[in-house]
C-alpha cells in the first residue's frame, strides 16, 4: 500500500512520456536539468530561454544535418538527488548531452556521466579542473574557469600598471564558500610571482552583510578590488563602497553580474564598474538581434522579451551555440545519427568559434576542454558595457599547473 501512490504516479508519468515521445521523430536532444526554482534562479530563466530560442531558430533554418533539434528543460531545485533523477531519466530517453548550471548538481552528476559515457557540459559551474580533458573525458566546462578568470583580471590590472605590479594592492572580496574561495590559491601564486600585495576579505553567505569587510578595506585602501560575489551581493557591495568612499572604478566583478544588478545599484551610480566576462554584454549582439526579428517580432519567443536584454541571455546563447555547433561538426565528421562519441569528436574539433562575435573565441581540444579560457574586462559607462581589453587568457601555464595539480587527485 505504501508504494501504491508512487506506482500510480509513475504510471501516469510514463504514460505521459510515451505519448509525448511517440509523436516526434528522433531529434538531437540536449537535456537541460536546471534549478529553475531555488538558488540559481538569478540566471537559469534567461539561460534556458536562450537555449529554447536558439533551438527554435535552428529548427526554422532546417535543423542540424536535416534533423530537428530539441532542448528538454526540467527543474531540479538545486537538489543533487533530483538532478541525478533528471539525468537518469533523460539519459534513458536517449539524451547524451547534459547541462545542469548548478555546481552541487554538476558535482553529483559527474561520476555518473563519466561512468556512462555521456557528455556533461558545465560552463561556468562545477569543478574547474574538469577542463583537463586527459582526466575528465566526458566533461566539458566550455568557457573560462574561475581560476582563469581571476588570472585574466590580474593580467588586466597589470596592463593598467604598465606591466609592473610591485607594490600594488589588490583586494579580493569573496563569498566564504567554495565558489568564492576557489580563486584564492591562484591569486596567491600570482601575488608571489608579480610582487603585488593580496588582501583577502571573506564575506559570509549569502553576502547581505559586508560592512566589516568594506570598512577594513577603507583602512587598507587597495588599488583594485576583485569581487567574487553573486546577485544581490554586488548591490550590497556598491552601497558599502559609497559609504566608505571607495570609487566604483576599482571594482572588478566575476562574470555573475547582470543588468538586474546594475538596475538595483542604479545605472548612474554603477558607472565605472567593471566585470570580467566571456560573452559580449548588451543587447546588440548579432545572434540576439536575429532571434528577436525571427521569433519575438512574430510572437514566437520562448519567454518574456525583457529576459533577452540580460547578459545571462547572451551567456546562454554562447553556451548553446557551442553545443549546437559541436553537433553540426559531429554530423560533418561522422554523419547522422549523432552519438556521444561523434559529439565528443565534434566538440573537440571546435576551433576559434565565437558564435558570430558573441563570445570569446574558443578552441576545444582533447586536452583542453575549457577552450582556452579567454575573457575580457568590460566597463559600465552608465548606459552600456564598454570593452576595456581584447579577449585575453593570461598566465595560462600557472592556471594549468593548478588545474593539473587538482585533476591528478581525481580517481584516487
Amino acid at each position, binding site marked *: 500500500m505504501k508504494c501504491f501512490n508512487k506506482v500510480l504516479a509513475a504510471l501516469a508519468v510514463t504514460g505521459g512520456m510515451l505519448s509525448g515521445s511517440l509523436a516526434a521523430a528522433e531529434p538531437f536532444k540536449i537535456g537541460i536539468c536546471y534549478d529553475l526554482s531555488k538558488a540559481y534562479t538569478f540566471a537559469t*530563466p534567461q539561460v534556458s530561454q536562450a537555449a529554447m530560442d536558439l533551438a527554435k531558430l535552428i529548427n526554422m533554418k532546417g535543423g542540424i544535418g536535416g534533423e530537428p533539434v530539441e532542448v528538454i528543460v526540467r527543474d531540479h531545485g538545486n537538489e543533487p538527488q533530483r538532478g541525478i533523477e533528471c539525468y537518469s531519466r533523460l539519459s534513458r530517453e536517449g539524451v547524451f548531452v547534459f547541462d545542469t548550471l548548478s555546481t552541487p548538481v554538476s558535482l553529483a552528476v559527474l561520476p555518473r556521466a563519466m561512468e556512462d559515457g555521456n557528455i556533461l557540459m558545465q560552463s561556468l559551474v562545477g569543478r574547474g579542473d574538469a577542463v583537463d580533458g586527459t582526466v575528465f573525458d566526458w566533461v566539458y566546462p566550455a568557457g573560462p574557469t574561475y581560476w582563469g578568470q581571476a588570472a585574466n583580471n590580474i593580467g588586466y590590472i597589470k596592463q593598467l600598471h604598465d606591466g609592473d605590479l610591485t607594490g600594488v594592492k589588490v583586494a579580493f572580496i569573496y563569498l566564504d*564558500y567554495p565558489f568564492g574561495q576557489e580563486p584564492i590559491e591562484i591569486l596567491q601564486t600570482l601575488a608571489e610571482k608579480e610582487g603585488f600585495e593580496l588582501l583577502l576579505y571573506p564575506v559570509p553567505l549569502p553576502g547581505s552583510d559586508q560592512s566589516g569587510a568594506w570598512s577594513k578595506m577603507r583602512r587598507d585602501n587597495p588599488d583594485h578590488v576583485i569581487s567574487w560575489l553573486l546577485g544581490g551581493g554586488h548591490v550590497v557591495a556598491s552601497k558599502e563602497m559609497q559609504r566608505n568612499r571607495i570609487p566604483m572604478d576599482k571594482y572588478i566583478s566575476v562574470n555573475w553580474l547582470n543588468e538586474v544588478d546594475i538596475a538595483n545599484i542604479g545605472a548612474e551610480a554603477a558607472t565605472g564598474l567593471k566585470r570580467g566576462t566571456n560573452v559580449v554584454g548588451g543587447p546588440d549582439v548579432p545572434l540576439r538581434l536575429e532571434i528577436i526579428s525571427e521569433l519575438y517580432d512574430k510572437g514566437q519567443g520562448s519567454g518574456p522579451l525583457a529576459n533577452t536584454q540580460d547578459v545571462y541571455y547572451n551567456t546562454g546563447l554562447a553556451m548553446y551555440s557551442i553545443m549546437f555547433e559541436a553537433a553540426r561538426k559531429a554530423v560533418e565528421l561522422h554523419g547522422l545519427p549523432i552519438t556521444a562519441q561523434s559529439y565528443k569528436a565534434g566538440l573537440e574539433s571546435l576551433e576559434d568559434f565565437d558564435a558570430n562575435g558573441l563570445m570569446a573565441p574558443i578552441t576545444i581540444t582533447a586536452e583542453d576542454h575549457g577552450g582556452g579560457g579567454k575573457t575580457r574586462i568590460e566597463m559600465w559607462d552608465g548606459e552600456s558595457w564598454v570593452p576595456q581589453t581584447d579577449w585575453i587568457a593570461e598566465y595560462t601555464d600557472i592556471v594549468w599547473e593548478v588545474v593539473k595539480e587538482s585533476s591528478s587527485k581525481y580517481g*584516487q
Partner: protein
Amino acid sequence: MFYRLSGVYHTSYASDSRIFKVPADRNLAVFFLLFGLAAPFIVPSIYLNSYMLPWLIWTAAALGLNLVTGWAGQLHLGYAAVMAVGAYSAVHAARFGVPWEFALIIGGLASSVIGSLFAFAALRVKGLYLALTTLAMQFIMDWVLHHSPTVTGGSHASLQSPTLALLGQPITSDAGFYYVAFGWCVLVTIFMLNLKRTGLGRALVAVREKDYAAAILGVNSFYYKILAFAASSFIAGVSGALLVATFFFLATPEQFSVAVSIQALAMVIVGGLGSIIGSYFGVALILLVPGVINNLVAAIAHTLGAQVNVETLAHIPNAAYGALIVIILLIEPLGLGKLYGNIREYLMVWPFDQFRK
C-alpha cells in the same frame, strides 16, 4: 473483511509483546519485504535507482531522527551535520584502505561520538533552546566543511568515494546498490520495531512525555537522552556514508547543508513523530513527491502542447507540493503515519464496526 478480526485481544504476555499484533499487518510486512527483495527484477531501473534507493536510505536516516525526536522528544535541527560526519569519516577511512564494512562502522561511531558530545552541551537546555543549539551544530559543521579542504577534498570540495565493496565483493551494479540500501533500511526498521517493546523504548517515551516525571519514576532522563542521541547519530552516520557510497559516489558539503537538516525534520514531522511506517511515507512525500509532481506537470504540459513558460512550469510543482503538505497536516496534524493508522483502525473490523461499541 481486510483484517478478519473482531478486535485485538491478548491472552498472554507473549502475545501482547509481539511486533505485529495483527496477522494482517504481519502479512503486509512480509509482502513488502518480498516485494523489496524482488524489486530489481520487477521495477524499471530508473525507479529503482533514482527513487527507491534514495528513498530507502533516507527512510533509515529519518528513522534515526525519529528515534531522537519522535521517541525521546528532543528536537534536532542538525541531523544532516551528523550524517556528514559519518559520510566523511567513512569515505576517508575507505580511501585510507579500511574495508568498507569497518569504514561504515567507523563512520557510524564517529557520528555517534560527535553527536553525543554535542548532546552533552546541548542537553543542558530544553525545547526550543535545544533546537537552536543543534542548529548551531549544523552551522559549525557547514563552516568546518567549507574551510577544511583536506577533509572535503580540495578547492572544489568534492570527495570521491572509493568503490563500495562488502565481504570482499565489489558492488557496482544498480541491483547491488539497491540491495545494500534495502538491507540497511530493513535493519534499522527491525531495530526500531523492537525498540517499541523494550525497556529502553519505554524509558525514552517516558522522558519525552515529561522528563522530571520520568526522573521521579527512577528513569535517568539525562542518560537516556544521551543514549538516544548516540544511537540516532550512529544511524545517521551509517546512512550518510551509504548515501555517498551507493548514490552520490562523492561527498560534497551541499549534500549535508542546513536545508537538508530541515528537510529531514520535515520528513519526520510530516510522516508522524514516533511512527515507523510514517517515516516511510514522510520521506516519500518530502524527497520524492517534488520530482514526481515536476515530471507529472511537465508531462501534462507536453501532452497538451501548452506553451507554458519554463519558470512557471518549475514553480507549479512547488506550489502543489507546498499545498499538499499543508493539506495533509490540516487533515491529520499527527502526520501521514497517523493517517494510515486511522484508515487501518477504520477497516480493522469493517464492515461490522457496530461490534466495537
